[in-house]
């Protein structure tokens, strides 16, 4: 089923648990540099933003890939097939959001695969700054707005 990760910077506390959970989920090792998610902390502004693949509907990485190693699968995930990958790294340059990474350690290209439907980053995020949304349902924000309207109506 199609899923989407949603990021709420207001809730992010800069702890980088998502980086740990991601690397462990994919490699059984703890290594932020093997994580598909990276947390950026803007110290002076007191704002922190986790960044990861948004699973584009028209992925630049897939468009530029010469071997078809990147494609959108049935679940709507921009998936990377390592067997077809030349590690030419064109996708690394092409992604406008910087969400395809190359690891000098493993000599491989890697990206978020939504952990087969149960993303570790969202699962372990202590504050809900990263969460999973099913695009088919109304976004959480709409529900929040509805809750507020409901309370107002009740009070009136």
């Amino acid at each position: 089923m199609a899923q989407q990760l949603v990021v709420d910077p207001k809730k992010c506390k800069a702890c980088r648990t998502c980086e740990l959970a991601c690397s462990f989920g994919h490699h059984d090792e703890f290594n932020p540099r093997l994580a598909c998610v990276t947390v950026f902390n803007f110290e002076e502004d007191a704002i922190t933003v986790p960044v990861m693949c948004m699973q584009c509907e028209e992925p630049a990485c897939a468009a530029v890939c010469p071997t078809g190693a990147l494609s959108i699968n049935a679940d709507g995930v921009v998936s990377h097939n390592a067997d077809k990958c030349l590690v030419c790294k064109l996708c690394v340059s092409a992604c406008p959001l910087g969400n395809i990474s190359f690891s000098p350690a493993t000599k491989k290209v890697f990206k978020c695969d939504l952990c087969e439907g149960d993303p570790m980053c969202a699962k372990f995020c202590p504050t809900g700054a990263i969460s999973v949304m099913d695009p088919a349902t109304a976004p959480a924000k709409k529900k929040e707005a509805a809750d507020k309207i409901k309370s107002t109506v009740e009070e009136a």
Partner: protein
Amino acid sequence: MTVGNGWTGTLLRVNLTDGTIIREALNMKDANDYVGARGLGTKYYCNEVDPKIDPLSAENKLIFMTGPCTGTLASSAGRYEVVSKSPLTGAIGAANSGGHFGPELKYAGYDGIIFEGKAEKPCYLYINDDVVELRCAKDLWGKNVHEATDMLNAECGEDFRVATIAPSGENGVLFAGIMNDKNRAAGRGGMGAVMGSKNLKAVVVRGTGSVKVARPEGFLKEVANARKMLIEHPVCGEGLAAFGTEILVNIINEVGGLPVNNGRDGASYDKAYDISGENLAEKHLLKNQGCFGCTIACGRVTKVKPDESEFYGFGEGPEYEAGWSFGSDCGINDIAAVLKANWICNEEGMDPITMGATIACAMELFEMGAIPESDIGFPLRFGDAEAMVKCVRMTADAQGFGKILGQGSYRLADKYGHPELSMSVKKQEMPAYDGRAIQGIALEYATSNRGGCHVRGYMISPEVLGLPIKTDPLVTEGKGALLKTFQDLTALCDSTGICLFTTFALGLPELAGQYREAVDSDESDEEILLKGERIWNLEKRFNMEAGVEKDTLPPRLLREELPSGPAKGKVAELQTMLADYYEVRGWSKEGEPTSEKLKELELQDISF
């Protein structure tokens, strides 16, 4: 225990005198027996250093050590320990810090660093995975923590993590700390002064490797359980995130345990709300922030705007301890002044507990006429926020009276003829809980292996917060046994690389559970807790050999009755509690580990 089971298996040994850098295998037997970080660092230190040396001499060593859980998904496990003999106390100094530095050191492939000797000229240690070198720190010398960190990031790269000292450490302020990630501190006992005495300005590290645990599946299960408990806990999941440790101001004041004016005027402060976490959150909190891998996020990012106060600025903190030391202990209820003093301590790498308590001591000495105004340059009375902030600045800049303040309250009070007015134990200032109103914490202060300290056995947890069980803070019975358990468990927790603050929610089963899966141990909870007791007794043995004074408290706590509040009329009933404590520890009546106890802990062959 083997490499890969929470450990990288490699230590760096850096000789600053001759510039040699050696990689050596981690002693796995000691790693097993002393857990890591605080315990393992102390074991290495005791193996290699004569307890009688001068802490600021080239003979001293300075050890950075991580734990087997550091840099993993274990609950709040971003921590490392700095171990050396403390120049403030002369006792074993072990200062624990969070942030992101410790994990990065492990990702670079090192469990710890042992610094030896003294560099001829200011230098810093550069670690970029396999590339490890000493570099010139000429331009960095004299720069404060934030300046030096920015300069090092510009020079080495944005993704390097920096641990550095400020001029306070360079100038031998006896409570100078080592600051990493700008605002996280290996704060107490003057580890920064030891670093400065070696002409070592900073350690910068970038690591791209991995940390592995022994049993990934079991580890994940333990971690998920511990994290769930933390998130659902009222203190770890709600209170600390919303109000930070400053949430304690009103709570401690309600039991009459918030010391006022150097403890001279008791421990009930009528203006407590002004310096509380609630007031801070309402007025100056931008957001709360977590250390590496932390669910709690107790850190405060704070700001005072120029139109709000003359003490405007931006930074992190304060913790409850600084809220008290610069607040009620100095008779000050101006939260902006408290923030300012705390920010200066972060930027200038100074321990705010000792700093504030030393100023409070100076205020009492001034008011009684023991310090002439000409020595200070201005009147220094309780309640004078401007004078308080000025004192912090003067200490950071080693200016005039600031040079005397930089030696801590004991040496200050002694110089002016009243050592009894230093609110310190073993020359380190006691923190923000009055031992007359909370008896068990008095026992903790008296017996702590690093002098006046709350985080060696946090008795506030059972005595005030009721965690894990509520005990009466005014009762002495049973406090010895309770404190022993807290001290041993804390030694264990500190040594794993997990943050002590998790223990409001987690107990031995959760700590031991995560540890077992990380290192591949089949030991029982009790066997693992015994390692904590072993660490405690090793620290004690070092202190005995170093000639550290016996366990006692300032006369004020022992003889001056609290004048008001719920604990009115109380003094610290130390002798009763000490006798109980020594007995449950299996120590002699004089407070020394017996040979039977040392044998039980396999410490009988330790020689100094």
